[in-house]
């Protein structure tokens, strides 16, 4: 069902993702203030359109720290965690998915049961327990993302590999005497790569939410600003200064929508069935 039909999405998504990447890469340069610098005389300043000053565009928090700078540095943490987390989740998922789909048999049964068991437990709960076990920190969030989300990749890659395996070019490669490993890397993988791009885009959106959730419940690093951490702080003062929570929530929602919509449109472009 097309979500792209009502308004032009792709350009919006690309704009958001480029902006996010830019903020993440150049955070120290573009942020107007040090995100940790306190200024207790200027705490709870509202954003400029609600009567604040142009010096603090989005206002300041309870300790007088500049909200805009904290948001920009939060983008850095979000991108860092979701890029690394998604990459390794994809790596594990793709390797296991390829092996399981290509070789079948006992290996496939084992991996498939593992994936089923993994996915039957609600990920939020698993994630929180896991993060509590490892202890708080950014690395914890990355590990949680990898451990929870490799199954998404594994399932799709497995079923796609089964489809590819029965195609003529793989038979030809087998007759040609290629080893299974070479067939997987040189023949099957390039054919599932477009699908992988879609999955990765969707996964980035999910990973950003996971990061927000874990920092929201206090299981990410408390030494650097994170979007979830900002939401958690903002929740405390939501009745006095709703923008402290509003700004990071707005950022996450926009980023998540952007990744979802781009995932949708990539899928449409590479999937001829959907395109027709």
């Amino acid at each position: 069902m097309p979500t792209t039909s009502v308004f032009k999405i792709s350009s919006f998504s690309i704009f958001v993702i480029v902006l996010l990447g830019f903020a993440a890469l150049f955070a120290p340069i573009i942020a107007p203030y040090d995100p940790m610098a306190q200024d207790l005389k200027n705490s709870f300043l509202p954003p400029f359109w609600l009567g604040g000053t142009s010096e603090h565009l989005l206002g300041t928090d309870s300790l007088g720290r500049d909200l805009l700078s904290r948001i920009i540095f939060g983008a850095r943490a979000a991108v860092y965690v979701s890029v690394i987390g998604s990459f390794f989740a994809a790596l594990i998922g793709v390797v296991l998915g390829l092996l399981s789909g290509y070789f079948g048999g006992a290996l496939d049964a084992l991996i498939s049961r593992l994936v089923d068991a993994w996915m039957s437990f609600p990920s939020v709960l698993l994630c929180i327990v896991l993060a509590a076990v490892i202890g708080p920190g950014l690395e914890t969030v990355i590990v949680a993302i990898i451990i929870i989300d490799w199954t998404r990749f594994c399932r799709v890659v497995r079923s796609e590999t089964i489809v590819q395996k029965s195609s003529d070019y793989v038979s030809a490669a087998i007759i040609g005497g290629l080893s299974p490993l070479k067939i997987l890397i040189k023949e099957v993988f390039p054919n599932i790569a477009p699908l992988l791009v879609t999955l990765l885009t969707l996964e980035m959106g999910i990973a950003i939410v996971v990061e927000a959730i874990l920092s929201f419940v206090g299981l990410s690093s408390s030494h650097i600003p994170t979007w979830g951490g900002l939401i958690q702080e903002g929740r405390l003062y939501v009745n006095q200064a709703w923008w402290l929570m509003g700004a990071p929530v707005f950022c996450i929602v926009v980023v998540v929508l952007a990744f979802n919509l781009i995932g949708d449109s990539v899928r449409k472009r590479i999937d001829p069935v959907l395109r027709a």
Partner: protein
Amino acid sequence: MFGRYLMLRLLLAIPTIFCVAVIVFVLMRIVPGDPISMMIPPGASPDDIENLREIYGLNKPVLDQFLIWLNGIAEGDLGRSISLKLGVGQLILNRLPATLELVILSMGIAIFLAVTASVAAIRYKDTLVERVLDTFTGVAQAIPDFLWSLLLLLFFGVILPLFPITGRLDPSLSFDPITNFYFFEAIFTFRLDVVWDLLAHLALPSFALAFPLAASLSRVLRGSLSEAMSQDYITLAQVKGYSRLEVITKFALRNALIPTITLSGVQFAFLIGGTVLVEYIFSYPGLGNLAISAVVQRDLPLIQGLILTFAVMFVITNLLIDLSYALINPRLRGR
């Protein structure tokens, strides 16, 4: 025949729960940090600490701790919470009704929204209505319940203060329930003021849980509805002169609902997991909120008990789904 199938499924559920228990126990033992160190006052003597260890059984070998815990479960005793100093079983039983009320209401809202949206989209196919509904469905599904909670809290709790944003019931209402199923009890005792207040508190969290769920349900329902609409009995109904809306609701919907019902069973289990964050955000006194504070406090007995409770709820839900399949389709009973 069906009785035997039921017995078999119930027996198979036991090892699953046992596995979860083992995993939970092992996970909790590799937590760095000592749960006792969280609860001692500054200046406690080593003797006091040793005493506490003994009370909570933390001085025994790990295997013994596990056997004591398992034995306790078999006797219905889940141990004592370290942070709250109360029986874990009692804590869970006190909180469970609040979570169940939230989950049931969310499920109801999700099904209502999904059915309304799908019927409307089929009724107004190829018009602006369908495209607007498409967009709404897409957005509702893309945003997870965690973010919906925060958005609803901001817009309808703070900027437009229509609903309360914390708690379950206004403490100024004098209401002394016998059970913890406040909502049902308030209805049966005709306390309409209490019912109203409970609904106001439930409104934001339940809609936050319902939106993504409604979106995924309505996608499935729309698929099966449009499939049903091409069947012969629909053409017959149209020839008989029923209006398009009547054809959809009276004939197509009934047949299209079956896949949606099975999906909502699966989703129900995930809804229970989703309550964790939503309850935390709205300070709603349910199991999920208890779970987060237990994790943050490193309260081992409470975490173990809670995860076991969640696992049992999943197993029961899955069991009910499978049984309903078997009731609908007798061929599945042999498996």
